[in-house]
């Protein structure tokens, strides 16, 4: 028997293949997912998690966790110990499992697949927060996002190469309009707008089909969402199964990196791969540290407010954490891109002109006309010579031109009035001191002929001619706005204007109906929503702010109506909103009528062509003669004084450019000043021809003295220089300071160095006690607010070292090794 036993061959070791390895890993993932869920509720683990929070300043120990243990918790603890014991006893098999090539490859492959899952299944909003789940509150939103994202993906997957997608044809009128546009702004601009329009047309039809696709498969998609939620596929990277996979990968890398003797690892052949693996281990270690200790959120600071020590965790308003110190916002500024646009008034383009960001030496060719050979040549070239960060607009002189000075006819009334609120930010210092400024109103420009009292007591319209009564709205005409509506598929020559009241019903081409549901004179993004205004006061009682209306568009065929917010200052096409609307075929723009809307009493100031017969006419009551220098008899405290009247107004602007002041350490305090920006521009007519003329123009981004506007002598075009706050800013910066409480509980400032050291920008952070602060948010409507990202992450440095090491290892393995090898081989051959 004994001999038989001795002669028995040892049982051959199990040979791992890809399938068996995959099976084991998948089982481990399931165990990991279950164990992870149980661990998250296991008192010792909860205590540990709270304790680790102590490193970031907001965690705490809460006494003994053992007292909170129930029987099942003890059982779970026993299970963990048993599992560890089994692993220890079978360590040889486990090592062999991890040392097979198949295990290594499958761990990487399954990690790849898991990450791919996270790309193919939309992750829920705020998934970065480990506590975030799909709940009753967010389920509807998440399902909608899931359905749209998957619908979008599968629609394109089933329409490869665009086969079966709806065709997109631009109406001939639109093409003709684009060609005219291209003649002025250049063929490149024409092509770009055409590309955008085609995208909008295809996008519209595609969106409809995707929505239909989603509707058809709603039940399947909902089930898919529930399945993904059940196994955490929509929060893949924070799931327990994914953590298990990364742990297994880390163990595999660890075991295989050090499986050979040290000497073997530092051979020329293996060094690169060894370094790479060490890098991966370092990276995973750092990731684990980050995972355990990281906290992040946003700190909302405002200029002039006391230090703040509480931030919103994971950008959520309902989760707060406190730092062991306070942070104060000492300085903040947001600077926009400097831009110009060029209007050609005679062309009557419906869409907005292109906006050109300007920098020194930029050349903008415009007004393209065919030359003798038929080739298009620009008739105007704008050459940016200088850009200045600080410009001061001096008192400008307005004077009456002569009939033969080549300038345009420009009727103008000049008043002494309270300083404009809109221009407060860049107001001229003189007017900021006195609170009053010169303002101009032009009767020939619809947008510039009405003045409204800052307190809403009255409004004044300047008019040319003697029939002042005709300037008032006809009795009963109290339309508050004009809607300019274009139905693209109808191929209208131009958008159709509709003067509207609340609850008006408009019948549009191609069977669309439009209802004016609500309106506001003071749109506020927080209070008002896409669905309707939060403001309950009647329109005439609302303050003077951003105008907006809410319309309901009902398509033909009884389809679902669309509720749409239309703002006066946001062009739906230029700002890309049109593409997101349900009925993209219908373009609605708003022109508020500040004169005919119901509201404060109306007055008309009129004069004849020679600046005589000046009179002030109230809507109800007798007119009265006005003389230059006289205060107008208007209600309210504005004390508007008529200073001058012009027929051919000419401006002589004084714009001075000031140098910025940069501290020796590189800090630029002038960044935080609110000066206007300046520009010197060469306006070249008939460039590169014998008729070329150059006029050098100084401009500033201030409305003061119309320093931001330049008009050509022949009235062909008008240039506007402004700070473009429509998209992302050019830059935003904050200077922070730190305060800590002393033993008596008093806040005392901490010396954290110069302003330069405490200044943060998007790519430059400030660190204090392990907390990193970086510029992440701002609001152009609230210039004193600065959103500061806060992160406490002790793992960052470890991870970065891991990444540097991986790069070094890869270069060693794949660049240095082959080169050295080739040289050795060449030597041997030689």
């Amino acid at each position, binding site marked *: 028997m004994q001999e038989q036993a001795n002669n028995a061959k040892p049982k051959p070791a199990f040979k791992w293949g890809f399938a068996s390895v995959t099976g084991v890993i998948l089982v481990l993932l399931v165990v990991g997912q279950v164990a992870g869920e149980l661990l998250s509720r296991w008192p010792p683990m909860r205590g540990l998690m709270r304790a680790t929070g102590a490193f970031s300043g907001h965690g705490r120990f809460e006494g003994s966790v053992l007292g909170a243990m129930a029987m099942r918790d003890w059982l779970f603890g026993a299970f963990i110990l048993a599992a560890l014991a089994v692993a220890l006893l079978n360590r040889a098999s486990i090592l062999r499992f991890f040392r097979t090539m198949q295990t*290594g*490859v499958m761990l990487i492959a399954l990690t790849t697949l898991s*990450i791919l899952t*996270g*790309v*193919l299944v*939309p*992750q829920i909003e705020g998934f*970065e927060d480990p506590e975030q789940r799909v709940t009753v509150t967010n389920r509807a939103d998440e399902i909608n996002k899931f359905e749209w994202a998957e619908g979008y*993906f599968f629609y394109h997957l089933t329409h490869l*190469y665009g086969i079966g997608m709806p065709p997109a044809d631009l109406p001939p009128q639109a093409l003709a309009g684009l060609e005219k546009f291209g003649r002025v702004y250049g063929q490149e601009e024409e092509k*770009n707008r055409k*590309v*955008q329009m085609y995208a909008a047309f295809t996008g519209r039809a595609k969106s409809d089909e995707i929505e239909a696709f989603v509707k058809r498969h709603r039940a399947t998609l909902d089930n898919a969402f529930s399945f993904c939620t059940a196994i955490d596929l929509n929060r893949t990277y924070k799931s327990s199964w994914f953590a298990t996979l990364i742990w297994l990968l880390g163990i595999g890398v660890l075991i295989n990196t050090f499986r050979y003797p040290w000497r073997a690892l530092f051979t020329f052949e293996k060094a690169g791969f060894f370094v790479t693996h060490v890098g991966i281990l370092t990276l995973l270690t750092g990731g684990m540290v980050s995972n355990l200790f990281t906290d992040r*959120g*946003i700190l*909302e600071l405002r200029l002039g407010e006391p230090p703040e020590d509480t931030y919103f965790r994971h*950008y959520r*308003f309902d989760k707060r954490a406190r730092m062991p110190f306070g942070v104060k916002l000492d300085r903040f500024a947001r600077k926009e*891109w400097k831009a110009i646009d060029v209007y050609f008034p005679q062309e009557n383009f419906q869409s907005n002109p292109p906006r050109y*960001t300007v920098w020194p030496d*930029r050349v903008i060719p415009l007004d393209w006309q065919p030359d003798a050979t038929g080739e298009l040549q620009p008739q105007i*070239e704008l050459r940016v010579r200088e850009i200045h960060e600080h410009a001061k607009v001096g008192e400008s002189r307005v004077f009456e031109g002569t009939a033969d000075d080549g300038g345009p006819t420009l009727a103008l009334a000049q008043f002494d009035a309270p300083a404009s609120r*809109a221009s407060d930010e860049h107001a001229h210092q003189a007017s900021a001191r006195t609170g009053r400024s010169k303002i101009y109103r032009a009767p020939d420009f619809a*947008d*510039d002929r009405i003045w409204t009292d800052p307190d809403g007591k009255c409004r004044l319209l300047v008019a040319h001619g003697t029939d002042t009564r005709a300037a008032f709205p006809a009795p009963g005409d109290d339309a508050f706005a004009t809607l300019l509506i274009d139905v693209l598929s109808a191929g209208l020559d131009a958008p159709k204007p509709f003067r509207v009241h609340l609850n008006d019903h408009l019948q549009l081409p191609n069977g669309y109906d439009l209802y004016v549901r609500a309106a506001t004179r003071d749109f506020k*993004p927080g209070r008002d929503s896409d669905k309707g205004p939060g403001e309950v006061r009647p329109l005439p009682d609302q303050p003077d702010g*951003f105008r907006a209306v809410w319309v309901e568009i009902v398509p033909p065929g009884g389809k679902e109506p669309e509720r749409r917010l239309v703002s006066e*200052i946001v062009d739906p096409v230029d700002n*890309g909103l049109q593409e997101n609307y349900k009925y993209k075929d219908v373009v609605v723009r708003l022109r508020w009528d500040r004169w005919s809307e119901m509201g404060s009493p109306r007055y008309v100031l009129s004069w004849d062509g020679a600046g005589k017969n000046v009179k002030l006419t109230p809507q109800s009551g007798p007119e009265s003669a006005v003389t230059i220098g006289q205060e107008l008899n208007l209600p309210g405290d504005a004390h508007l004084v008529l200073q001058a009247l012009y027929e051919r107004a000419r401006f002589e602007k004084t714009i001075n450019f000031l140098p910025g002041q940069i501290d020796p350490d590189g800090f630029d305090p002038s960044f935080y000043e609110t000066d206007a920006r300046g520009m010197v521009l060469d306006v070249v007519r008939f460039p590169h021809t014998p008729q070329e003329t150059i006029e050098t123009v100084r401009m500033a981004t201030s409305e003061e003295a119309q320093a931001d506007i330049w008009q050509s002598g022949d009235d062909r075009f008008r240039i506007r220089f402004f*700070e*473009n*706050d429509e998209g*992302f*800013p050019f830059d*935003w910066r904050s200077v922070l300071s730190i305060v800590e409480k002393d033993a008596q509980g008093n806040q005392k400032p901490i010396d954290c160095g110069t302003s330069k050291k405490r200044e943060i*920008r*998007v*790519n430059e952070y400030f660190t204090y006690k392990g907390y*990193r602060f*970086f*510029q*992440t*948010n*701002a*609001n*152009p*409507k*609230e210039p004193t*607010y600065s*959103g500061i990202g806060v*992160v406490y*992450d002790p793992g*960052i440095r470890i*991870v*970065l070292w891991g*990444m540097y090491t991986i*790069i070094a290892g*890869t*270069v060693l393995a794949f660049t240095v090794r082959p080169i050295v090898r080739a040289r050795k081989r060449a030597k041997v051959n030689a």
Partner: protein
Amino acid sequence: MNPMLWNSFDWLQVADGICLAGALMCAVSVFAHWRASLKGVQSHGYSLLSTAFLAMTAAAMACSVGMRWVEVNHFPSQNMNEVLVMFTAALVLSMLVLHFALGLHRRGAGWAILDDALMLFVFVGTYFAHEFIRTLNTAQRDLPPALQSYWFPPHLSCLIFSYATLGIAGLITIVYFATRFWSGVWVGGWSTRSQLLILAGMLLVPFAQLVTIPVLALVGLVFLGLRALGKLPTRETLSGLEKSLDDVSFRAFAVGIPFLTGGLWMGSFWAQEAWANYWGWDSKENSALITWLIYVVYVHVRMLGGYRGEKAMAVLAGGALSVFMTFQIFGYLPDSQKSMHRYTDDGVQPKEGMSGGAQDDSASAPAGQAPPQDSAR
């Protein structure tokens, strides 16, 4: 700026002209090398001319990228038009680097044919890519604050160069599988299942009409020509060719992978500076990581498992497909709808620099979502 200087698109046209001439030169070179290989003669003269055209194209592309940099006043990778020009520039440069790194032209006339063919694909691909680029929106776009970083040029350049190089490695795998397919048809030795699998892969891969189908057709034409001449290669010759293609594709991969690694992790270095978050699990980051991991699998199966031939080549082709998806199809993927990296899409407001505001806080709505100021007066 002197307006008489050629602009970026003029330089692109110059590059196109050289590409056409270079493609013609490569076609002549293929023919000459084929004849030389039949006679057993070494011939490098034609390769030198093709390489000169490649170098000239690279110079013209560098001028185009440089001019665009001046025209838009920042590193030109802010819209798809600029990124694709960078890619074609990188493609030409990669081919130039690989021409010397692989040294195919030095291995004999037969190998020089492959070198010529790769260059021919690069010339033709660059030309047609430029045709496509001209249909895209070319408007200048301002850089959001987060992109105003010194990491922007090296991060983008490394990734795009690696995409181009790994794309060429992927092209070699397509040549490999096309050769496998046609050798199976005309010489035999492969199962019908294997043949069908290759054909399905070639036809069903996204945008097959741009790469896989033309390569399959070209290799098919070569086999047809050889058959007509009665010079179909033997099974042994083909086996040797496949081994060599495997070796060449690995070398091309070895040139690209350090750049992919560098580009990927440079993105992390940049992200931790901008948002103190080296990895945000954003879908673009994830797509790039997937690509890198597929290549890691390739290294392991090839270097540890000793895999050669179709299995290793299939993984390498998978890597190239992942590069393509990350680079061009990313915008269609479900989780990409809320990605912070969609700054090359038309009409999509980039979210770079906006890590968000506290939710439900009306007073501090994120800047990108607040209505703009009344700048139009």
